[in-house]
């Protein structure tokens, strides 16, 4: 017989081995050698914490008592993994992109970083998980007792309690050591996950070993086993379909909602592709775990005396056959199941308790004391985490003691499930329904919590323990319809199905109703969009690598959120730190991260990230989402935005007036300048004409000289005429008295004609054209159009000041018009003159080389308007750039 001391030694050795595994894994991870620590197999194995001691021992007991119903507990998660992997993927993606640390954080983040929701979910999770933890303590303690009694010792209650305390303390130490070694932003625990994976293998091997022993060692092979199974009444269909469906739903939902499952599924997930493997590997694991449940139950019922606890068959069957080694392995399997569940559940709960209750409370108290917030909040958080772990385990132990460690615990598993499942509506609604609101989620969660407490949890303590027999039978205060197991007068239902149905129905109903009737805040809208449309928004990396945002943009945003003075102080401090003069620092990734943390204090981490993201351009929300949020904000701040609109309008009007005034002033100056100019332009040729005619009149000279001077007089007379023609042309165009002729022609031909007429024979101006794009037909007044082109080409020739002047003519069809751009490689036109050049009488002063009087572009603009098109200056082209927009088909003078 194995002595109890040896058992203790084996258990301790096993724990030490796990310790070593966890330690090595942690070391490798911190050294950056993550490698196989993050393999999909490890991920799948870590999911096996779903199979707790309740499953390991309890499934056999369940089968012995209720037949095949235990299968539902495995079917639920199997259905989720196979049929709903896409939903899981979304959950995992949200978890990663939003740095979700727990299921409470998920709900709180989704609904606008709501503190209240975080607390509600934490309370539900703790209340629902505590009995479950007690259950694990019980199973470990009982398995110790089995060995103790088999060794001839007489185990009393006090021995059990002592064992339970030792187990609880041991688990607390282990969890504190590996669950709170450091604070990881993502709450990943490589050591723990590795240890759990090892435990998953141990418990599967243990159960398979016992099963193989039972089938081949006891029953004498599969065939004989089947005969025995047929003979037993386990396989009889004993349950209603309603309970069957309820249980599958319950286990499926619990798989998603249990804090420990969320921890391994989402928080510890290193790569969402691991889900691909897990979606078949985990159901396989569950299948193997359930394979021998029925044989063990059947053989146990046959072999052991009536009245033996079927929950311990996995241990007692090998022991009764003298297989102590096998029993020891089985013990380790059960021990693994219990410890892994407790460790992960405790970490998950402790994270929630410390993040959503302890730390906010501490910060609140600190703020009240007026203490300056020190930068080192880490040790406070770690301490809170450790105390929470101890607290959760203490709660489990207290529950274990209060419930007397009796049979009441056995039924608590499903009740516990139902409690955790209350989170489901808010979670699913949160990730699939943008209309879900904080109010709705809070109403649903609270309703579900109350209904669950009343119909399942409180009655589970036993009659008269919390709820009196009278209240159970006749309802509280004589309110018949409030009977815990017959709400609203529905009687005759299975209490569990009844509790699940009502809690989920009322929970979902209140959630939907509350969401429909309330209005989400902008932050909620933003978060809702981020969650529901996570695949459009998320990126793998959360660090800011690009720094495209201007410091100024960031400052403007920061000022809006935390106020001008504080924002400027932060930016200035950073600028000083970087050794830059001025108040705008370089936008380094570190600074952005620091700023984001600062902003997170005001608007929440996810929102801060989204807002910064919008500016940085790394990730974040789509334009539509921002518009939606802006709409919302506009509605809420209607009054304020109306005021803003008014003042903006006033500003616009003032600005327009100022512009008009400036333009008028400029025009008036231009007009004066024009008079001067026109005087100059008229007087210059007249001067030559007068002077040379006097020379011809007064002096004797050679015929050659005479001819030359007469030629000058002739040229200058023509120059005068052309000037007068221009003035007349413009006057006619402006008055609309011009006659236009509608013709159809080829654009390339028209450009050829214009280039010829512009007189580029000296080759001083190189022309670059696009023959393919020019090969189009257009209908317009081609002569007038050519006049515009000639003017632009001549201008380029006159004004382009490049060493090797070049004019690029490009044509592009856009809509029902052609855009014809004339871009030269000179120094262009100063921005302040770009508007003035089209005004008549204007001539840009510093270009006095011009031959005309500044009427050319004014005429061009007039022509293009008459032809239903336009001409404009294109700024920023590294040269003078004009765009002529001409309709492909001009309907003619009357057709406008």
């Amino acid at each position: 017989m194995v002595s109890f001391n040896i058992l203790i030694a084996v258990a301790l050795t096993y724990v030490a081995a796990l310790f070593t595994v966890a330690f090595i894994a942690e070391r490798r991870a911190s050294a950056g050698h993550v490698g196989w620590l993050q393999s999909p197999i490890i991920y799948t194995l870590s999911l096996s914490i779903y199979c707790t001691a309740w499953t390991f021992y309890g499934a056999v007991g369940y089968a012995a008592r209720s037949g095949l119903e235990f299968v539902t507990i495995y079917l639920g998660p199997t259905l989720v993994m196979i049929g709903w992997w896409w939903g899981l993927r979304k959950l995992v993606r949200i978890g990663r992109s939003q740095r979700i640390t727990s299921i409470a954080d998920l709900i709180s983040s989704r609904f606008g970083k709501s503190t209240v929701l975080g607390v509600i979910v934490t309370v539900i999770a703790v209340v629902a998980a505590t009995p479950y933890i007690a259950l694990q303590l019980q199973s470990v303690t009982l398995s110790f007792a089995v060995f103790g009694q088999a060794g001839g010792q007489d185990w009393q209650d006090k021995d059990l309690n002592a064992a339970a305390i030792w187990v609880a303390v041991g688990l607390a130490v282990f969890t504190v050591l590996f669950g709170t070694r450091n604070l990881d932003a993502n709450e990943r625990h490589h050591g723990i996950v590795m240890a759990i994976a090892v435990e998953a293998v141990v418990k599967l091997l243990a159960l398979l070993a016992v099963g193989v022993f039972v089938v081949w060692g006891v029953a004498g092979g599969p065939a004989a086993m089947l005969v025995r199974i047929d003979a037993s009444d386990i396989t009889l269909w004993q349950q209603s379909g309603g309970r069957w469906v309820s249980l599958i739903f319950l286990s499926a939902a619990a798989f998603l909602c249990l804090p420990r499952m969320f921890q391994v599924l989402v928080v510890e997930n290193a790569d969402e592709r691991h889900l691909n493997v897990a979606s078949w590997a985990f159901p396989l694991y569950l299948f193997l775990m359930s394979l021998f449940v029925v044989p063990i139950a059947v053989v146990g019922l046959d072999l052991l005396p009536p009245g033996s606890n079927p929950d311990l068959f996995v241990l007692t069957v090998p022991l009764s056959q003298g297989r102590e080694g096998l029993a020891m392995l089985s013990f380790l399997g059960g021990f693994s199941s219990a410890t892994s569940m407790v460790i992960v559940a405790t970490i998950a709960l402790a994270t929630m308790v410390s993040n959503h209750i302890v730390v906010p409370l501490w910060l609140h108290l600190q703020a009240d004391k007026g203490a300056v917030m020190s930068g080192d909040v880490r040790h406070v958080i770690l301490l809170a985490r450790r105390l929470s772990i101890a607290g959760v385990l203490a709660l489990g132990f207290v529950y274990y003691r209060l419930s007397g460690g009796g049979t009441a615990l056995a039924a608590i598993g499903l009740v516990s499930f139902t409690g955790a499942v209350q989170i489901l509506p808010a979670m699913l609604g949160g990730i699939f329904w943008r209309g879900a609101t904080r109010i709705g989620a809070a109403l649903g969660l609270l309703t579900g919590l109350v209904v669950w407490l009343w119909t399942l949890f409180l009655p589970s303590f036993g009659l008269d323990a919390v709820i009196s027999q009278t209240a159970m039978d006749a309802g509280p205060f004589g309110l018949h319809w409030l009977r815990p197991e017959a709400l609203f007068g529905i009687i005759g239902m299975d209490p569990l199905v009844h509790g699940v149905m009502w809690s989920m129905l009322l929970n979902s109903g209140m959630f939907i109703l509350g969401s429909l009737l309330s209005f989400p805040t902008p932050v909620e809208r933003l978060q809702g969009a981020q969650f529901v449309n996570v695949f459009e928004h998320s990126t793998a990396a959360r660090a800011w690598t690009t720094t495209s945002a201007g410091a100024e943009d960031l400052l403007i945003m920061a000022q809006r959120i935390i106020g001008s003075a504080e924002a400027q102080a932060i930016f200035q401090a950073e600028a000083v730190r970087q050794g830059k003069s001025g108040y705008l620092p370089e936008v380094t990734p570190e600074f952005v991260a620091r700023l984001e943390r600062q902003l997170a204090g005001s608007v929440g981490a996810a929102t801060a990230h989204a807002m910064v993201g919008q500016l940085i351009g790394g990730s974040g929300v789509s334009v539509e989402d921002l518009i939606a949020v802006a709409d919302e904000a506009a509605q809420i701040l209607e009054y304020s935005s109306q005021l803003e609109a008014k003042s903006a309008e006033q500003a616009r009007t003032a600005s327009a007036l100022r512009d008009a005034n400036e333009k008028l002033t400029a025009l008036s100056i231009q007009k004066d300048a024009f008079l001067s100019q026109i005087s100059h332009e008229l007087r210059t040729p007249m001067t030559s004409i007068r002077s040379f005619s006097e020379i011809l009149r007064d002096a004797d000279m050679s015929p050659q000289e005479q001819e030359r001077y007469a030629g000058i007089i002739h040229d200058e007379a023509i120059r005068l005429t052309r000037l007068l023609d221009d003035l007349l042309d413009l006057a006619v165009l402006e008055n609309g008295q011009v006659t236009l002729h509608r013709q159809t022609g080829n654009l390339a031909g028209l450009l050829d004609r214009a280039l010829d007429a512009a007189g580029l024979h000296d080759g001083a101006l190189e022309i670059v054209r696009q023959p393919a794009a020019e090969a189009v037909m257009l209908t317009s007044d081609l002569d007038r159009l050519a006049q515009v082109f000639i003017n632009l080409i001549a201008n380029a020739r006159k004004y382009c000041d490049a060493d090797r002047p070049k004019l690029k003519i490009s044509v592009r069809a856009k809509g029902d018009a052609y855009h014809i751009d004339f871009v030269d490689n000179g120094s262009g036109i100063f921005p302040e003159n770009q508007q003035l050049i089209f005004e008549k009488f204007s001539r840009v002063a510093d270009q006095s080389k011009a031959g005309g009087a500044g009427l050319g572009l004014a005429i061009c603009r007039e022509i293009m308007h008459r032809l239903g098109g336009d001409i404009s200056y294109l700024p920023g082209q590294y040269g003078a750039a004009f765009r002529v927009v001409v309709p492909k088909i001009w309907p003619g003078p009357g057709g406008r």
Partner: protein
Amino acid sequence: MGNRVLLIEDEPNIIEAISFILSRDGLTVHTHEDGQTAMAKVLALPPDLIILDVMLPGRSGFDILRDLRVNDVTKAIPVMMLTARGQAKDRELALRLGASHFMTKPFSNAEVRDNVRNLMGA
């Protein structure tokens, strides 16, 4: 008294006309077309008379006149402004800046010749 005249003017035909008129009167005419470098041209070889246009490329004739009048080498050289800008305020400005004479275009050849003779003889 020397006989060198510097004509600062950018219109080729007018340069030719004035050069013809003054050469025929026995003067040596140098010409310069750019406002920016006009001052350097004057300093390189100070003439006995300057005929100065107002609207010049690079630098206005008024600005050149201002420079001429503050430089010890050039402040005594007579300057005749000759411009197509014939407004009264231009005349006033020119005389205030120290122009010796102000003429508007178009001009009569005899008038140019007589004014130049007067200024050169002074």
